């Protein structure tokens, strides 16, 4: 599997009346072809902004000010709007949280499906329509020939999300960004959509960035996971390592604080005290400092970096608690390098 996307220490800022606000800071992760990464975290942690940064879909006052986003070797952080237009919907496509508002209410499903197909695949009107009907059938829409003439308000939320998926996958993108695609749906519908995404992923070998706050969805879908907190990645590893051997105090806290139906009956939830710091008032040191049970004096002053440790799979943590492991790993790598040279 070749490397498809490498996001390297990007910083996304918004210009506001009170001055620039940094909502994503030093976010890095990479993704191979056909791989699924989950960005997980609470609202305001910067997971959506990260994905919008990749697509250049931020509001007018937001932009990536530092770092690079290498997609198939090309730096999207420096791409022009014209370049991005060729990439969007074609090489990278996106589905959103609210299926009820993500489709244009005054255009037919067919209209909205075929315009991307005609634009990127240069199909004729009739070819595009035929292809669109095939896509609708592929995502499990009954009566596709009829539905294509309908307006979005005739469809349920689950059906609309299927249409969004059909639209996103129609130009066979290398990368699909799904921003909380099932959060607004009922659980039985969520299960349908997740199954559909799994099936289509196998068929098309599309890489997926799945943004979610639900650790259950992460466990179902992810190959690897980046846990985000207050605009930073605090832990990144493969999905099995994350659930078997979580390290960062925030990840641990998150896992223990979620009530789940598989929890034992009398287990009391551990809650993380306090709340997420505001973007206007980010702590200087570790951003989890005031909610962390293991906070040390240096966490207040010094900024921890995301560094790898020794584990079964690659595993990086942004926390001073693991400084020794991180140092050991670095020494080991250096030693290996020396041996090989």
């Amino acid at each position: 599997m070749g490397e498809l996307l490498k996001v390297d220490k990007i910083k996304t800022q918004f210009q506001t009346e009170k001055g620039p606000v940094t909502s994503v800071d030093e976010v890095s992760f990479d993704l191979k072809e056909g791989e699924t990464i989950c960005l997980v975290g609470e609202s305001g942690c910067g997971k959506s902004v990260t994905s919008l940064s990749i697509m250049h879909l931020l509001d007018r006052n937001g932009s990536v000010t530092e770092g690079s986003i290498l997609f198939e070797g090309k730096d999207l952080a420096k791409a022009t709007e014209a370049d991005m237009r060729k990439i969007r919907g074609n090489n990278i496509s996106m589905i959103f949280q609210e299926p009820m508002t993500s489709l244009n209410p005054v255009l037919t499903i067919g209209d909205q499906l075929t315009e991307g197909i005609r634009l990127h695949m240069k199909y004729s009107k009739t070819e595009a329509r035929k292809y669109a009907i095939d896509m609708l059938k592929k995502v499990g829409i009954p009566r596709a020939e009829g539905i294509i003439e309908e307006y979005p308000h005739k469809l349920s939320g689950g059906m609309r999300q299927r249409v969004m998926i059909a639209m996103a996958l129609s130009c066979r993108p290398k990368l699909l960004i799904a921003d909380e695609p099932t959060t607004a749906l009922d659980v039985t519908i969520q299960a349908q959509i997740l199954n559909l995404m799994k099936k289509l992923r196998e068929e098309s070998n599309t890489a997926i960035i799945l943004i979610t706050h639900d650790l259950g969805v992460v466990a179902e879908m992810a190959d690897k996971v980046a846990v985000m907190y207050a605009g930073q990645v605090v832990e990144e590893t493969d999905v099995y390592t994350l659930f078997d051997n979580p390290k960062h105090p925030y990840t641990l806290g998150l896992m223990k604080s979620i009530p789940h139906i598989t929890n034992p009956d009398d287990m009391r939830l551990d809650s993380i005290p306090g709340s997420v710091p505001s973007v206007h008032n980010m702590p200087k040191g570790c951003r989890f400092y005031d909610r962390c049970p293991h906070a040390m004096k240096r966490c207040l002053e010094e900024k921890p970096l995301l560094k790898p440790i020794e584990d079964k799979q690659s595993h990086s943590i942004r926390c001073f608690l693991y400084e020794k492991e991180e140092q050991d790993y670095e020494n080991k790598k250096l030693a290996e390098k020396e041996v090989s040279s």
Partner: protein
Amino acid sequence: MPLSEQEKPLLQVKNLKKYYPIKKGVISRTVGYVKAVDDVSFDIYPGETVGLVGESGCGKSTTGRSLVRLEDPTAGQVIFQGKDLAKISNKEMRKLRTELQIIFQDPYSSLNPRKRIGDLLAEPLIAHKLATRSEADKKVNEILEIVGLSKQYKNRYPHEFSGGQRQRIGIARALMLHPKLIICDEPVSALDVSIQAQVLNLLKDLQKELKLTYVFIAHGLGAVKYISDRICVMYLGRVMEFATTKEIFEHPLHPYTEILLNAYPIPNPHMRDRKQIVVEGDVPSPANPPKGCVFHTRCPFAKDICKEKIPTLTGKGHTVACHFPLESVNV
């Protein structure tokens, strides 16, 4: 909390129905009804928490709102401490309102943005003429402490608080009048995951301390399981299954319950390849519910009788509305 058969229920819901007319045309002719709640009955005992779960359109919120008479039922009874809420006078209802409170999903939109927290909280006490200004003030301090907020917050306005803090204020307001029963309508759904646990734990602690009874409405089964003693599973305005939390999770009898439990993604990647029954199709519209058992259109075990006859809620302790409950199918 174990229920003893001798105990008298705090609240009884008997054949509750809430239909909303669908109007059409210039003269607003009624052409049909949205059956939001259709023939729902259950009892709630003092000190327990009953969870109402189901997908959107199942009528759980309408049921909850009917319990505190925020909705007038189309038919049926809601009996609280022996009094039928639909029959009593407004004056009596006002008195009862001190014992029946509700907490909403979005605490922000249910708090008047132009009032200070202290005034918001004191308001019901003064409105019900239960306390003087200074007594109310003392009470506000006390309640704020109980819900884990500093009494310095009294002079702040709602917009100065985070979501979790606002929900604490919502809870504080419900507690001001020493209610017996609190309807919690999706109290944690709008909150961030790390905050949800704080609020759930607070609700649990308050229940123990103040001997409260809860009706907990949520679509997240995890939270419902965590807090409820008994669970009522609803679908399209009807009760599908009602049993203790343990029974519901360990021996679900209704196919819908089984499917609902199954649909939740499990936060354990080693279990991702488990066998899952995925139910096809959407929830039908409550304006046009299927005949017979409302779930038959999506039920994998549906037989002819399910299309014809509405199953009645049967069983002792663990009740289920199904012609072919799972145990009889599986075993």
